[in-house]
């Protein structure tokens, strides 16, 4: 019959309309559906049926651990009274070489005798150029550069505020542990594993026949390329 197609379509619209209010009822006793972190997770997940709107900035979606946005530099946890600890960066320049849009500038540190020192004198990232690809993090052999979760970088002046210097880039290890707990733990395990493997190798050469250690799967799966670098 002519017109049934349109009626069927109307039924779909009606279903969405009703569903959007059912959410209100089901969350009414548990603090309402808006401005409620628990409700937000369900609304946005596979079970969500009603309205998906997120009231940004009052409501914010959790970003997953692997989310990547504009790099930062990892330092040791700072001693009391200071903002940063020792840089992890050794200014080897791999991140600057691999960076696809070439947004990283590094000035290598120098010892008084003019020989290179394994720490950066200056480090700049032009965040207008950065494409958030994550290659710097992927290829850094020292776990010293990581992609951040802070995506709210709007500012009034791009010429001054959008070139991040070392001071702006440095963040302590505790911050990385906070935003990416699983990955940070896996990296730590991998670093220990390298030490352990070296020790085992030495022991084996000395005649102690212990087998090669393996990195636990729960850690290996968090690392890029399943941690084949380690």
């Amino acid at each position, binding site marked *: 019959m002519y017109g049934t197609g349109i009626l*069927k379509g109307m039924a779909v619209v009606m279903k969405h309309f009703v569903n959007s209010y059912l959410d209100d009822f089901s969350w009414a006793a548990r603090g309402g559906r808006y401005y409620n972190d628990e409700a937000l997770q369900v609304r946005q997940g*596979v079970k969500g049926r009603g309205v998906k709107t997120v009231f940004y900035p009052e409501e914010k979606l959790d970003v997953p*651990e692997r989310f990547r946005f504009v790099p930062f530099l990892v330092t040791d946890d700072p001693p009391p009274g200071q903002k940063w600890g020792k840089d992890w960066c050794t*200014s080897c320049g791999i991140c600057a*070489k691999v960076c696809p849009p070439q947004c990283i500038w590094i000035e290598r540190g120098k010892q008084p005798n003019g020989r290179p020192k394994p720490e950066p004198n200056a480090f700049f990232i032009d965040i207008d150029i950065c494409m958030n690809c994550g290659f710097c993090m992927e290829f850094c052999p020292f776990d010293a550069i990581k992609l951040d979760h802070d995506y709210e970088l709007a500012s009034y002046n791009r010429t001054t505020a959008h070139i991040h210097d070392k001071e702006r880039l440095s963040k302590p290890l505790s911050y990385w542990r906070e935003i990416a707990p699983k990955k940070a733990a896996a990296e730590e395990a991998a670093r220990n594993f390298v030490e352990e493997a070296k020790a085992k190798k030495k022991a084996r050469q000395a005649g102690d026949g212990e087998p090669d250690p393996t990195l636990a799967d729960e850690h290996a799966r968090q690392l890029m390329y399943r941690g*084949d670098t380690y």
Partner: protein
Amino acid sequence: MSELILDAPEPQEEEMMMGTAVSDDPVARAAALLKERFPDAVSDDPRDGYSGVMVSADKLVEVATALRDDFGFNYLSSVTGVDLLSENKLEAVYHTYSLDQGGDALVLHVQVDRDNPSIPSLVPVWPGADFQEREAWDLIGIHFEGHPDLRRILTWDGFNGHPLRKDWKEAFFEEEKKPFGSRWPDGGVFRAEEKNPFGKNVQYPPGWQPTGNEYDVETDMYLPGETHVVDPGTGIKTDQVTVNIGPQHPSTHGVFRMVVVLDGETVVDLKPVMGYLHRNHEKIGERNTFIQNIPYTDRLDYLASMSNNHGYVLAVEKLFGMEVTERAEWLRILMVELTRICNHLWALGFLLNDLGALQTPMLYFYLERELILDFFEATAGSRMMCNYMRFGGVAYDLPDDVRGTPTMQFLEELIYGNIPRVLEQGDQLMTGNEIVRARSIGVGVLSREDAIAYSTAGPVLRASGVQYDVRRANPYSFYPHLDFDIPVRFNGDVMDRYDIRMEEMRQSLRILQQVLPHIKATAGQKINSDKPQYALRAPRAGEAYGRVENPKGELGYYITARRREGNPDRYHVRAPSFINLTPLGKMCQGHKVADIVVILGSIDIVLGEVDR
């Protein structure tokens, strides 16, 4: 290989090859026959690592006609140029396929003198060469004799030089190849515009005036000719009106312009004008190292970044002779098929939008797309610019959970629950809807012959009755082990293109349902056959063409490299959105203005890929 794969159906390729000797493969046979028929004009390509035949320019049209009519290579997929600066030559490269037999490309190489680069146009043989030859003229500067409308296409007419020539330098030129020396070890930060201030970074060709040129009215340039028609019945002289739709127009899906000649409300002629988003992706790609191109491919068809990655890594793996681990292949197929669903949901939602059902029904399609993007974000770190694939595998294994749900459970919910539900809902919303049917049946018809001649690909080609899908015709990855159908429709109108996309999503679901057990079975295995390397160098000189069935059609990457070089020598993208636009004018003729929008929507273009 896991045990599961042993139960999977045998690859079709072997069946096709049964009973035939290896030397009998269609490409080698056609090449041998060509050499026999044109002994003076056709010869093997003597260079190491190159396939196909060398054709002399003066006989090109005859060779192409014979190839099309007598040898069954009836589909011209890709036309591009290469600058061979050291030999002082320009080369045109044509990839032709046989739609009936499938298989690899027969590649034609035509070399001409760099100072007088003139090659006969193939538009009379394949009209689909139209835009691609214009692109090769624009970017490389090969002059195609006999082309009906050889103008610049991606850059504008006041552009100086041909940017893909090796001796051309961009305004913000720093060095020939990345990485740039200024970044390390003495990096002093600077912004490009400090070195080359705005206003002083443009050069015009000699003798070119920014204002007042040969065209009085800009649209004359696109549609010259008589604008008055005399009505044969009454003898009354009526005006035809030239209208610009776009470049800033919500229904053009981006910054895209259509110059339309209208007789009343009816379209007499239409020409697409593009290039507003042009950033010379290919020049950037040639400055980049091999791995640096992966994130750039995300930005081509930004609705299907996983597929773009896939095509590029396939091409480079071919060039490098790399292996891919089993789990990585399954992960790639999982991602690519989810991308296909993502893209088609977007396309159908937008088609509704173009039909006039603004915003709300479109969003019904996007709800499930959102979940797929959540999955991409949790796995690869970004919703759209995934940058997920690497040479030899993928970057990351699956995450532990997505939005609080364990990953495998999330995927099962998605594949067995949410996506089938949204497809059913889309069916209810659109397929039977009388308004949709009235607006789309018989609109924008592209006949089978035209679809082939115009080099269209993907859903546009299959809606016109050609059952051609790269996943089956020239299989890659693990597709031969998977059981799925290639949908085909025969009317070639907007409704059929809609139908094809709907059906393709169902087939993608079928593939995903078969992939999930493999993902489970291969858990814990290696996802990359290689160690991460940031400075890969080509182990051999040569060319490679990797192609995948992107949601929009055949996406091909043509790469040439020199031995021990870390950067591709030539990097070309065969962009399906761009080439599918070639028959737009033809499809729109005789329809009303409002139908243009729908026809464009049914082709499904992404301007990031059209303009590159």
